[in-house]
């Protein structure tokens, strides 16, 4: 069995998750601070990919990144780089589709965060950057990890937008989900079944991880001995 689709799916999902992690947290942090009206509008725009059919997302991506479109043309001329129909094209698709999951979970966690903790840090003379990384992020850790895992799972399973922007080329752009469809279409029922089982296994592990994170006892196990450890 050719394991290329598994490896390709994993690297696509991994790269998009890293991108989404930072973008999602960044968006969540700043959108939460905005005035209500702008917040509402931005919230709709940032959540839209979650409810849109993936083919619509794929359509927009092709209009933007296609070799004859603005961004796609520019990249082709400047760097001689194609943005569609190559393995990393699928990163755009899965990143856009999975982004709202990270953004919304992180925002929920930030909104539940006790503002007084941030204020206390400020009056004690600590910088806002310190407060963000040493207080806000650790306190919102569970929500952020849950969002990351969900985003990773969604990115791994992306099909619609991926098939439009990356297509299916065996050994090049094939992912698990596009392979399942391709094998089924060509009558290889057993082959499709194998990939279905792989997919089921990965999804089950991911959901199990999310559940365990939610149930996990919040008490930290590590005893911190040094007084100043973890303060800077």
């Amino acid at each position, binding site marked *: 069995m050719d394991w290329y689709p598994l490896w390709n799916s994993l690297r696509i999902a991994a790269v998009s998750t890293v991108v989404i992690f930072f973008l999602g947290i960044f968006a969540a942090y700043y959108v939460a601070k905005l005035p209500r009206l702008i917040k509402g509008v931005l919230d709709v725009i940032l959540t839209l990919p979650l409810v849109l059919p993936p083919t619509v997302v794929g359509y927009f991506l092709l209009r933007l990144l296609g070799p004859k479109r603005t961004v796609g043309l520019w990249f082709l001329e400047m760097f001689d780089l194609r943005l569609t129909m190559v393995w990393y094209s699928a990163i755009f698709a899965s990143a856009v589709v999975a982004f709202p999951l990270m953004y919304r979970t992180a925002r929920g966690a930030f909104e539940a965060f*006790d503002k*007084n*903790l941030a*204020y*206390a*840090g*400020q*009056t*004690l*003379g*600590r*910088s806002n950057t310190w407060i963000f990384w*040493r*207080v806000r992020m*650790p*306190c919102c850790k569970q929500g952020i990890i849950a969002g990351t895992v969900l985003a990773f799972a969604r990115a791994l399973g992306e099909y619609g937008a991926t098939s439009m922007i990356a297509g299916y080329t065996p050994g090049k752009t094939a992912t698990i989900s596009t392979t399942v469809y391709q094998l089924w279409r060509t009558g290889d029922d057993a082959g499709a079944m194998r990939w279905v089982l792989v997919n089921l296994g990965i999804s089950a592990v991911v959901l199990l991880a999310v559940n365990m994170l939610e149930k996990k006892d919040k*008490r*930290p196990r590590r*005893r*911190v*001995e040094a*007084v*100043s*450890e*973890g*303060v*800077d």
Partner: protein
Amino acid sequence: MSLLVDIKKDFGRFRLDAHFEAESGAVTGLLGASGCGKSVTLKCVAGIEKPDSGRIVLDGRVLFDSEKRIDLTPQQRRVGYLFQNYALFPNMTLAQNIAVGVRDRSKRREMVERLVKSFYLEGCEHKYPRQLSGGQQQRTALARILASEPEVLMLDEPFSALDSYLKWQVELELADLLDKFPGPVLFVTHDRDEVHRLCSRVCVLDSGRAQGVQGVMELFNSPRTLSACLLSGCKNVSRARRVSEHRLEAADWQTELETALPMPEELAYVGIRAHFVKPVDGPGPNRLKCRVERVVTEAFSTVVMMSTQGGSEGYARLRMELPQERWEALGGPRELWAELSPGDLLPLTRD
């Protein structure tokens, strides 16, 4: 050293208009009902909220001045703020929490050790905030604040998160600390007893408006305004009209009364504390015929709710508090005469 606050901020729902000065080495209480702008005032001083206009000056150092466009960050202000829920960082141990406050890194270890000792927190250094008792949490938060060497201390309802049986002990400890603190202390509360025990000066805040700083004894003996009177715990208030310098007409009690305190021109209300209302045997000056509506027995005293003549039945307008034995000795009358002596009446103005 002193803290001068003169700020205005419009919240739509209400306008904050706070003007007061807090002296060094003294505890100044900010007394008001919940939602009157006490916490917001502290947040403005700390730099967490920005006033629309005004000035905040700490010992000659301008923290905020809307005209000169000065607005220091909370980090620059050196203001110690004890939050209602203490705001300890849950992801850090007690010692780490205190260490956060120490600005000079080389002194950190030594300072944390000293503060842990002086706040009786030895043995808890490696515990997390949720593993500490309410009193320990408060001491940790105070130690963390003192570690940052603030020039002013602000306490926002410091006992509201504590069980009542813990309160007394924690309050005694806090009183010691407040005595030693060299700078000004602002103490926000809605509890008149806390003001009485811990503060030397008090400023009453009523729906966003500060009514000026006065001595604590003055607030209890001769509150000037209706809200100050109610906040100082007075339960009996009637609308009133000035008749002469020492006579007034109490509209809700339907009677004329003599007062020892001279009445202001703009007299609007008159008040008397429940334990100053005395049962007497017959009519006379400053005496009212009352009908007993309800009797409530408390731990050591009896509260009698009474309606006065002219008042509708069932609507108690006068509340009398007296020792249980004293009430039992009266034999549970349906009607009685109550005396409001001139020396106990508090003439009040509208706010």
